[in-house]
């Protein structure tokens, strides 16, 4: 965990970027998260997460073609780097380990 410092929202963003594969840019990521997780995402929060993830090296980005829809501005597409993949894998594995370590008794509520 300590090697890959990653927050819950950052993890969501990275997974979404991976889901969208070649179509991961600002708005599509925002909409995907909103649709799948039924939670509101502000442009500000998402953008900060993207900037931070890129700075950490978990994501990389490249400009796409300009289009008229966006006021003539190019889209910046994001991609998960191999290093980023390791990071989310590690998060998942650590969760799995924790789940596996829970004794089955812990969730039996009938007689407690």
């Amino acid at each position: 965990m300590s090697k890959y410092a990653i927050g819950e929202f950052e993890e969501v963003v990275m997974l979404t970027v991976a889901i969208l594969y070649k179509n991961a840019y600002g708005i599509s990521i925002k909409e995907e998260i909103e649709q799948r997780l039924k939670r509101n995402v502000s442009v500000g929060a998402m953008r900060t997460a993207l900037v931070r993830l890129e700075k950490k090296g978990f994501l990389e980005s490249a400009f796409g073609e300009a289009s008229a829809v966006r006021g003539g501005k190019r889209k910046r597409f994001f991609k998960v780097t191999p290093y980023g993949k390791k990071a989310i894998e590690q998060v998942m594995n650590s969760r799995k380990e924790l789940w596996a370590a829970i004794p089955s008794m812990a969730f039996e509520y009938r007689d407690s």
Partner: protein
Amino acid sequence: MSGTRLSSPPKSFLRFLHWFCNPAILEDVEGDLHELYDHYLKTRPHKANILFARDVLLLFRPGILREFKLNSHLFGSIMLKNNFITAIRHAYKYKGYTSRNLLGLVVGIASSMLILLWIDDEVSMDKFHDNIDRIYKVHRNVYQSSGEVNTTASIPQPLAVTLVNDYPEVDQVVLLSWEIEFLLSNEEKVFYEKGRYASDDFFELFTFPLIVGDPHTVLNDPYSIVISESLADKYLGPSWRNDEDLLTQTFKIDGKQEFVITGVFKNSGPDTSLKFDFLLPAKEYIKRNSWVESWFNGGFNIYLSHRPNADIDAMQAKVLQEINVNTAYDADERVYLQKFSEAYLYSTFENGIPIGGRIQYVRILLVIAIFILVIACINFMNLSTARASRRAMEIGVRKVLGAHRASLSQQFYVESFLLGFGLSFGGSGSCSSSAAII
């Protein structure tokens, strides 16, 4: 016109975004916002601009902000030291100018500060009572046949009894007389002193802390007296604090009746409109003067506190005709409740409602204070700009030597700052010394 306005996001917010956004991500972010804006236009066209503005404002956060560099000319440069030296030299060289300039502002600031201090004094009057928000002063509006309305705070004493018995929303009721001068004697010491008659709950309703005595009971006995700290010092000497027999000491009022001390209250500060050096129980007065107990006479001021959450408007409506009902409408006298916190500043009544009083002086003087300050500032500016011609040569030389515009303005800022620094000392000094004299 409206078509173009609808189709493009608000310019001002875009400009704001351009100003604060990190240029590395600006293009992308702006594109996103455009796309979102188009989406808003389709789904919620009326709110599109507001939603866009919200998006921009939410982007204003670390991580997206560009780096802001402080102006290196203004901070920490070696010129700063030079500026201080020039400012001080300049002040010494033109002593007359400097002192006149300073004096004008010092007098202006000191006098407006004095006025503001006085205003603060006036406004905080009586506000120290713990339940000041629940205390009301009772007024009596006497409607004359001529149509005139006279307002008085002298209230028939039976109203207090009625308020206690018939009004569940009323918490405490206190009768208080005017300040009366008595001949107060304790053994050989005889002085004229000012005191008041007050009923039992006085020390519970008002917050006058007692050094000796129980606030609930000090005025219960008809022949008790509660004196102030300073009065105790005057009559009993400073040793009264350690005197075990303090509560057996007696005072003779007007050479007749003896009263036993039951309490000593702390000297009240200047922020109370209720002034008195000692208190006597109101029942003793009523006992001797049965005329007060009539609904047709006014004998005391009445203060009351209502219970928390009581409906004060309903209470006001209920109490309005209370005197008339009990005097069979002999004269049209209606009861009016005024918040005690406002009683000091709004004491002038017209047609039965408070229209002003000392608050008018407070307002007038506040305006005067602001004017004095503004005039002093204008005067300061005038004098400074009048010097411009004399400084022109100096500025010219500095420019020739390569001074930037920023470093020149810095020089004058430092000068004004130093002047202001001396000024604040002079201003507060003269203000406090004149306040001490007053």
